[in-house]
């Protein structure tokens, strides 16, 4: 496919998207991610090996393709290890498609805004489809945003799962009943904000504090271990290769349909949800534009 695609994120979805784009023979792919590889990535981020731990994700993923002649002959991959919100608007202009596999909210809002501005300022001359994939456990979604035509990312902001794990302070401080309450207290009251969760010693101190406080309130510590504690502190979301594969593939099929003019932006669904926990349920619908959207109203 004679086009240039920007992939946001080289994690679970990013690896899948990059692989699919290569197999679709997309001429050039740019991939941006500022994270480094960790052991817990390796159950799904299949372009990485144990010896790649601590290397930047974007360059390692790009290298996987660029090092193999059978793959590099189809697709040229250019990595960026940096915060994508530092790119100037002109950077985004060179792409025909942008596909996101990010889980953070702000960078996606940023890209969405930039793309809508480009469409507006160019008077529809520039219209870069933005395809956004996300997963959580056995669930996932794909949003297809055609700036100026479909709902934008901002329009559907309220479909994001509400940030849970916020407990009333009086519960956490005075009436803790669960390990979550205990951990929340230790993190927000008993430790300093600049603590390093990668440091084993500091994590252990934290763990001991949690254990002490749980015992003090007679809370069952059977489930409490370091991985459980970190899961709550870092708000770790479960992730598995199968769901990532399904969502990334849906993103790439969306791109292919736009490229080959098989999509009707006005009629076709632009929002798909998948849930594989009970059977394999998918739901595709047209998400309407929000007439009062702060980003896309008036475009």
């Amino acid at each position, binding site marked *: 496919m004679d086009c240039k695609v920007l992939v946001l994120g080289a994690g679970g979805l990013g690896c*899948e998207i990059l*692989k*699919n784009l*290569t*197999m*679709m*023979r997309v001429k050039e792919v740019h991939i941006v991610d500022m994270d480094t590889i*960790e*052991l*817990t990535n*390796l*159950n*799904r981020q*299949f372009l990485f*090996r144990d010896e790649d731990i601590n290397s930047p994700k974007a360059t390692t993923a790009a290298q996987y393709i660029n090092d193999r002649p*059978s*793959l590099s002959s189809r697709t040229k991959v250019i990595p960026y290890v940096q915060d994508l919100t530092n790119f100037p608007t002109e950077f985004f202009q060179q792409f025909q498609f942008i596909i996101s596999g990010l889980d953070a909210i702000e960078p996606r809002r940023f890209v969405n805004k930039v793309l809508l501005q480009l469409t507006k300022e160019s008077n529809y001359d520039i219209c870069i489809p933005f395809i956004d994939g996300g997963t959580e*456990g*056995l669930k996932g979604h*794909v949003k297809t945003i055609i700036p100026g035509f479909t709902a934008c990312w901002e329009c559907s902001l309220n479909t994001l799962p509400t940030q849970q794990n916020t407990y*009333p302070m009086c519960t956490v401080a005075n*009436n*803790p*009943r*669960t390990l*979550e309450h205990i951990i929340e207290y230790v993190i927000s009251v008993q430790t300093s904000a600049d603590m390093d969760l990668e440091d084993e010693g500091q994590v252990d101190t934290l763990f001991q504090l949690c254990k002490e406080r749980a015992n003090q*309130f*007679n*809370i069952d510590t059977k489930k409490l271990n370091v*991985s459980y504690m970190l*899961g709550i502190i870092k708000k*770790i979301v*479960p*992730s*598995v*290769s*199968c769901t*990532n*594969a*399904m969502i*990334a*593939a*849906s993103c*790439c*099929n*969306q791109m*292919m*349909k736009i490229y*080959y003019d*098989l999509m009707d932006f006005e009629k*076709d669904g632009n929002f*798909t949800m998948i849930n*594989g*926990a*009970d*059977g*394999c*349920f*998918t739901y*595709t619908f047209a998400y309407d534009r929000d007439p009062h959207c702060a980003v896309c109203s008036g475009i």
Partner: protein
Amino acid sequence: MDRYDRQLRLWGKEGQSLLDNANICVVGDESPLLQEVWKNLVLSGVSKFTWMIENTMESSLQEKDLFSCDFITEISALHPSGIRVKRKALASLKGADNSFWFQFSLIIIINCSDSKLLELFNNSDSQYFPPIITTFATGLYGYLHTYLSEPHFIIESHPDNPIPELRLDQPWKELSIYLTKFQVDKMNEFEISELPYPVLLFHCVQMAARNNYKLTSPLLRNELRRWASDTNPTGLNDPNYIEAYRFAHLAFTNEKILIRLNEMIQYGFSMDHLDDPYNRKVIALLKALGEYINREDFPIYPIMGTIPDMSSSTKNYIELKQIYQNEGQKNTKSLQKLLDKEGEEVPFEMIKLFCANLKYLNVIKPTASKLTLLFSSDDDLLRDLLAIQYNLNDIANSGAINMKAASMNSYPTASFMGGVVGQEAIKLITHQYIPLDNIFTYDGLKNETKIFRI
């Protein structure tokens, strides 16, 4: 942290250990779909495979179709200790007996083009097969079929919002003593605000009972509001009162659960000799459960033994939680005693899980006894896909497939179907989450999927 941390959060150590020990039979030549399925299985932790291929000679496939030309070596690197693949000629399948099939947790048949192969799995002499997944992808379309020769039971179905079980209308002795201990009428506002909501609900249920007044959940809500407005109006905004009002229906035992469980038990009795060891354990559990339910004057099943977090003082909550937990443990032990008679060795951990998830016990019933029944489906997309896959002329093109979409690059679709197959394989192997029953079709053009049963 563990390499598998992110998936252990979905299916736990037990599920992971079943994957670690799984042995999967993959049938089919090299193709993007086969490679994608295999990749997902290895990433999830499966390392033992038997690969049935048309001929065990070198692959005939061009490297242009595959993500990597030597994909077995590449995917082997995705497992911390590498994978083991036994290659076998397809022809050796003929005449394979039960003992051959028993070694596998699952059979996956990928992009098969010879319908004769499917006849091998037609279950004429009630032969045992592990679950069989057949799958095919072309253009923007694909399907998957799960074929079961035995029922598939799920103890841990992981519902999104599990509903707690309070039994305030049928309290056991310890619960009743504990809940009556609070003299709610003599408490001040602050003390009431520290009570977990079941105490408030129980208080209202008891008041109604004293007036010979049988409550339903709307009536209980009225009763609760009346009581609170009369005696403790400032408490109407307390979180425990709001929870009590919201969850009033939980005071009553849901009769539907007992009906469902009785159906399950009957189904268990109707399944006489099953070969799958997991199934035999579940059948024994179901038989013991039948006895458990019917031994008392009024039928009752083991309680889950957990309550969710609720607004309350730490002390009250922990005490209440302990009472449910104790009863759960007691019920589990009673079930274990009844189980001894069944003559089937069931690990205590499994009995515990069974009791803790009883309300959500699920089963996928076995499919028709012929794998080739697939061809009798009247679903247009499935029929068209089968016609393409097996080169059948007797099935007319129904128009379910758009020719342009059918000729497009199929790699992402293969990857999508590989994800679904991997997910279903994991669910079948771990006996967690509910597998799809039993046909799944994917239409990438419309972004639609469909599930129906043959």
